[in-house]
């Protein structure tokens, strides 16, 4: 039967205070009535008012509804309800009428939605194909102008040199990023912001010029590819559009027909909060296909994140691939079970073997710059103790063939990996950014993997 883990439930909370408030509601004592069946969990929660709030959750996707007046979504009662459910405290019961009504109205809506574009994409009614073409052409024109502006800006930057650019204030970069957002090219804006980040931490990282030139190269390639987009192979053209910032509707993804069912191990998860925007990213490793895909969800303040698959566990699910980027982004169509323990980690025998697929991926999507990588039996090499004043070298991860890559994690992340290994060889899965490796899951030989980041 479908339930969510505590971590997943807390991840649903729109902010930290809602998560905390939710935990305080997760007490059986607060709920005069509480129950669950195959499809839903529900309960009445005593709030400050005289009537209890009616709160309910659908178990297939974690959607919730509550009669309280909170503007947060999900509200603390819904989080409390899901936490009680996760702890197995909701007893099997017969569904009350008000829950049945809600489930019915949801099913109704889902049928209608399948025919309509998903929220977040261009939401206008798709009445007139001509008007639609006109809108698409208008957007392309805007992007054309943005790309031309960015090209000139990049040329000026190259002329003045990276050393000069590195000393520019944040606003200088931010202004350009905003211009790209105005040009409806969010992907370009994000890359400009990444340049600003490289510049900002330049003083602490001796390799910043290399990273900045790498980023500039990728950005320039986007500009030039856009201007020659008619002559690109279709897969690369699709990757380009996605990287520039064009989104695809759920319907488009479903129509592309790339559905895949497998048991997926979630070997990496990152949850970012940037002001109002929350982002969840997971790397899903397919057990029988060997394919690795990326699940991505966004939520602005007040909305909840679609939780993805249970982190640090294996579960069977049907996914749909987005056309375009490598590795593929996916949509979760159906979860077939709840998570089971991870089991041993997959992985290549050496770094060379693990990184050999990079060229193939980049041949389709040259902007694939953050890649999931798994290697077995690597040894953590802590940097030599900081010699007097000099900077300690990076920590390395050495494979069985004696070759090594730098570890990108924070000090805490490196310590966790070192502690887990105890100096023995470990199997790791994580992210390769072209310069260093950030481990996200690890396992000692013959043991179950666990998330460490």
């Amino acid at each position, binding site marked *: 039967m479908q339930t969510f883990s505590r971590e997943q439930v807390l991840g649903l909370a729109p902010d930290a205070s809602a998560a905390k408030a939710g935990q305080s509601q997760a007490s059986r004592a607060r709920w005069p009535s509480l129950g669950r069946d195959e499809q839903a969990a529900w309960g009445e929660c005593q709030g400050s008012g005289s009537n209890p709030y009616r709160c309910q959750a659908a178990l297939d996707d974690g959607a919730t509804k509550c009669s309280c007046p909170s503007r947060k979504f999900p509200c603390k009662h819904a989080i409390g309800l899901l936490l009680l459910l996760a702890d197995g405290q909701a007893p099997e019961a017969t569904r009350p009428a008000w829950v049945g009504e809600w489930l019915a109205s949801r099913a109704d809506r889902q049928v209608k939605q399948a025919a309509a574009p998903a929220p977040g994409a261009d939401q206008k009614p798709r009445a007139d194909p001509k008007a639609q073409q006109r809108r698409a052409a208008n957007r392309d024109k805007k992007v054309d102008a943005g790309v031309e502006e960015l090209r000139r800006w990049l040329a000026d930057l190259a002329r003045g040199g990276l050393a000069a650019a590195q000393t520019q204030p944040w606003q200088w970069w931010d202004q350009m990023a905003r211009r790209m957002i105005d040009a409806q090219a969010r992907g370009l804006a994000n890359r400009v912001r990444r340049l600003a980040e490289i510049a900002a931490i330049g003083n602490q990282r001796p390799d910043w010029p290399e990273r900045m030139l790498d980023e500039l190269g990728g950005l320039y390639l986007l500009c030039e590819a856009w201007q020659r987009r008619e002559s690109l192979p279709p897969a690369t053209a699709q990757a380009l559009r996605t990287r520039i910032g064009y989104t695809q509707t759920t319907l488009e993804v479903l129509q592309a027909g790339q559905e895949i069912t497998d048991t997926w191990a979630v070997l990496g998860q990152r949850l970012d909060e940037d002001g109002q925007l929350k982002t969840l990213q997971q790397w899903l490793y397919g057990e029988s296909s060997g394919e690795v895909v990326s699940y991505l969800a966004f939520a602005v303040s007040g909305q909840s994140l679609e939780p993805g698959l249970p982190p640090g566990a294996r579960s069977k699910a049907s996914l749909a691939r987005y056309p375009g980027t490598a590795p593929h982004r996916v949509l979760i169509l159906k979860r077939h079970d709840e998570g089971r323990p991870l089991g041993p980690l997959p992985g290549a025998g050496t770094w060379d073997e693990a990184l050999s697929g990079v060229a193939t991926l980049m041949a389709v999507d040259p902007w694939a710059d953050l890649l999931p990588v798994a290697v077995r039996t690597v040894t953590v090499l802590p940097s030599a103790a900081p010699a007097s004043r000099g900077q300690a070298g990076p920590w390395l991860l050495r494979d069985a063939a004696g070759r090594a890559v730098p570890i990108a994690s924070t000090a805490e992340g490196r310590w966790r990996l*070192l502690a887990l290994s105890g*100096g023995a060889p470990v199997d790791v899965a994580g992210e390769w950014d072209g310069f260093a490796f950030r481990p996200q899951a690890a396992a000692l030989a013959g043991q179950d993997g666990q998330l460490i980041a």
Partner: protein
Amino acid sequence: MTYWTELVDAAVLGTRRATLPKPAPALAELAPAEGKQDLPDRLGLLRQAALASRARRAGFVAKEASDRPAPTPAPVDDRPAVSLAARRRLAELMVAGRPELVTEWVRLLGRAGRRPPEALLPALMTSAAGNQQLREALAPVLGPLAKWLATTTANPAWNWVLPRDRAGDLDLAAWTTAAHRVRRELLEQTRRVDPAAGRELVTATWSGDGARDRAAFIAGLGTGLSADDEPLLNQALSDRSFEVRRVATELLARLPGSEAARRATSRAAAAVRLDGMTLVITPPTEITTEMAADGLQSGAKAGRAGHRGWMLTQIAAAPPVAWWAEHTGLEPARLLAIAEGTNWADALRNGWITAAIRDQDSPWILALLDLSRTHVGPHSTPLMNALAPADLAGWLAGRPGDSLFEAFELVPGPWPEDLSGAVREYVVQQLRTDPDAFGRYGHITQLRRLLRIAGARLEPPALPQLEQPEVHPRLLDAWAELMNTLSVRAAMRRELEQEP
């Protein structure tokens, strides 16, 4: 120099100043033909960067590192691992910032005889460095891995994991140059193994040290105090700084055989004596040179009791508080009761409070706490702080209903059987009270606070399950949180017993 690094160097300078390198042969054919470019040099760099950066990524090869030494693996820890659920629970508690529950989890881990989860050990060791209770719970369950981590990473925050230095290894040479805090620690460690060596450190730099240093170092003699320290303490009695004199007086009072202690008891005996069942109290009217030299102050800081009262307070505080029982032949409670009936009640009580806290004397502190709250009120927290937690728990178990709620915070969890039982009974009774019966101002607030604390410290069994309508609406939050915490703690116990 590879083509890529040459390109990076050129990019740092910019195309206005630098000449671009010749593209690598493999890239040359992809590079744009000369003359076709709209802005030749500048775009030349960007185009080359686009090609070269993609080529570098696609063709990346890990570097040879066979010769770099790897750490010797940590010795094997034979204890079984904890279950996945237990590991996740600990991770959640650490993220949620529940240090009390983390500490309890670690204690239970020791009881279950399992090893700490490896990946969470670094974070535990870091938190414990700044949290004494966690450190005390964690130290006995640390295995070989902890020591190995502290040595391998040389992380200074984990030094506490390594065995303490012995005196021979202490860097006594640092005494003259190190910072205040380091010198205090050095003195403390030296005194623990070799008090004479510690005293020599203090005298060595005495004339050059500032008042703050001198006061701290005299206080440091409190570790390993003996009659050998008397000359130095006597010398400190004539110090320029009041704080140095005060600390020296306190230490001398703890040296039963000292001249200063003898003077203190004879002054006290002269000022207060028992005649039948009445106290005859005659505080001195004038401060003598000898008294001043012993650290007594004149009435400049006159309290309510005036000049002579202040003299009496200081004289009563000077001897070890236990001496009063010998002197009068009375138990503290009895002596206090008689003193309360005199005109000098405040002055005497204040002196005894100071002495009882200084000497951490349980019978005296308990007797003082039993006095009416109006008299001891402002001192109750320092008094309770000076009491051993077990004694305080015993005392509180007898009176949970007393509004000394703040006292509960001073007894760390898990609360002993009798205190847990008393609190449980009291809480249930209070929760069921008719809402209108809570007349006293602030009572609800304090009760809410007690509920919050009790959640993390009550020894199981948990509270009986109450029906919601029975609970006062304003206590509902705190009560639900209490029940929640108790259920988390019950789950912790279950999960730690599960097979991994």
